[in-house]
């Protein structure tokens, strides 16, 4: 029996693969490159399998929320539905509209998909076992370990915006162009609270490496970083363009937004990009706020997926219970609520942590006391912010705003509802 470092099936498989390649007599440097290719392939396949699973899961959940059954004919519980959909998408005709910029039109679905996949490169699925595996350092349970992991996620997350802009601009369709305008405005705006919440995470964790952030969580960071977690989750939903922030592709206003002219497999790739990105947001939330892979009894990667699917369930729940925002509401919510709240949150965290440090309560010394005190500070700030929001909303409802669309010579008829009241 070989001693397996980390006692993990994937590390064992990687060691075994390395040993086989060594026994053929390959150069160790070459083996590293081959292993990187294998990792990339596995990571991509994993993301695509998760994509297939969550398309099925989402339809099952929306069906239950809307009191229906959902897909139930293809395979047991409709589990083969994603495969049927894939076959359907592949055999559909792929149309290109008149006057489209064909190169960009064809490239943008791939850019959208790859941009979403790239986030997975730094997400750790388990601890780095350390030590030697077949003559090389045992790899991390992630695509790669980067010292600037969080910053990388921020940077890569913004690339999907370029895909949307490419699609909207090259389609030669006004709806598509309007959709991509909205997408740029929305995604750019929600980037600001996201950067601010990442600054708060980095400040508390003291590192940007995803693996080290998980190891730094002596208490789950959802407690000391409660508002940060909420802000990051909301801006993550906005960035992946899901409901209630899906006015980029609002069917009732601009038909389908930026992917209106796409059909067949290219349309599916945009769909894939959205879902893969959404699940990546859940994976980052799991890693940074929910202790990542850590958990008792079960192997780390199973814990990771249990938590990620839990977060994804909340995302679906939000998606199917909230109506879509209007663009002015969306912008006001971001700039007048999320940005000030996350700025204040950063101040509260910095001051609170410094005060606690001078008293002698630190993350390392007494994690739960430290976490709960900061959690209380978070709750105070959250309720103050919600109170201010409710107050300003009440005030703005009382102000009679002029109706812009109506001209002066047309007197509005008295509404029968208002008269009866």
């Amino acid at each position, binding site marked *: 029996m070989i001693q397996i470092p980390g006692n993990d099936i994937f590390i064992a498989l990687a060691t075994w693969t390395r040993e086989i390649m060594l026994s053929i007599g390959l150069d160790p440097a070459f083996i590293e490159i081959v292993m990187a290719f294998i990792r990339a392939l596995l990571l991509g396949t994993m993301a*695509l399998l998760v994509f297939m699973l969550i398309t099925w899961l989402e339809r099952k959940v929306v069906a239950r929320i809307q009191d229906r059954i959902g897909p139930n004919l293809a395979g047991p519980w409709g589990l083969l539905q994603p495969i049927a959909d894939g076959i359907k998408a592949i055999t*559909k005709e792929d149309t290109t509209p008149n006057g489209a910029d064909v190169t960009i039109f064809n490239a943008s679905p791939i850019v959208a998909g790859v941009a979403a996949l790239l986030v997975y490169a730094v997400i750790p699925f388990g601890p780095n076992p350390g030590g030697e595996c077949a003559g090389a350092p045992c790899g991390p349970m992630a695509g790669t370990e980067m010292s600037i992991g969080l910053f990388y996620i921020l940077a890569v997350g913004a690339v999907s915006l370029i895909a949307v802009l490419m699609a909207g601009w090259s389609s030669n369709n006004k709806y598509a162009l309007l959709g991509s305008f909205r997408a740029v405005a929305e995604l750019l705006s929600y980037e600001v609270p996201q950067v601010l919440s990442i*600054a708060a995470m980095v400040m508390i964790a003291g590192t940007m490496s995803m693996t080290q952030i998980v190891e730094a969580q002596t208490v789950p960071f959802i407690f000391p970083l409660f508002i940060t977690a909420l802000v990051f989750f909301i801006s993550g939903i906005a960035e992946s363009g899901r409901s209630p922030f899906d006015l980029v592709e609002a069917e009732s206003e601009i038909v389908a937004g930026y992917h209106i002219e796409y059909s*067949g497999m290219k349309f599916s790739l945009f769909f894939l990009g959205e879902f893969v990105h959404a699940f990546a947001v859940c994976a980052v939330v799991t890693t940074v706020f929910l202790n990542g892979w850590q958990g008792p009894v079960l192997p780390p990667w199973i814990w990771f997926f249990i938590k990620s699917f839990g977060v994804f369930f909340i995302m679906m729940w939000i998606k199917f219970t909230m109506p879509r925002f209007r663009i002015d509401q969306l912008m006001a919510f971001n700039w007048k609520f999320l940005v000030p709240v996350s700025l204040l949150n950063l101040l509260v965290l910095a001051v609170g942590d410094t005060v606690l440090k001078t008293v002698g309560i630190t993350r390392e010394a007494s994690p739960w006391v430290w976490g709960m005190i900061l959690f209380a500070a978070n709750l105070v700030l959250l309720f103050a912010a919600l109170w201010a929001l409710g107050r300003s909303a009440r005030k703005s409802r009382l102000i009679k705003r002029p109706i812009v669309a109506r001209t002066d010579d047309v007197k509005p008829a008295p509404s029968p509802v208002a008269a009866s009241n």
Partner: protein
Amino acid sequence: MDGWAFVGIFVVVGAVLLSVPLILSALLAPRKPNPIKSETYECGMETYGDTRVQFKAQYYVYALMFAIFDIETIFLLPWALAYKDFATIFPLIEMIVFVLILVGGLAYAWRKGALEWL
């Protein structure tokens, strides 16, 4: 293995993985374009005029706001990374001043009506 080298490999592998269904689709799917089918889709209307229409100035204002705020908040990240090693209280005060400048900028933009969707 360098982190960025892996990202490069992952870009290539990802693009190949996603191209497979596109190539399959190109081989299997029917392709019968006709003038009406490849018209720009506008819910049955014929498209009118140039597609690349002028856009609302408000988008531009938000882009400016984003440029200002995102670049300023990026400056917070090195500070946040070094936060654990601070021995004195001075860096904290500097950061508070910096964030208050940001809050001031936001308040100014709010007051000037740059945040209203017109």
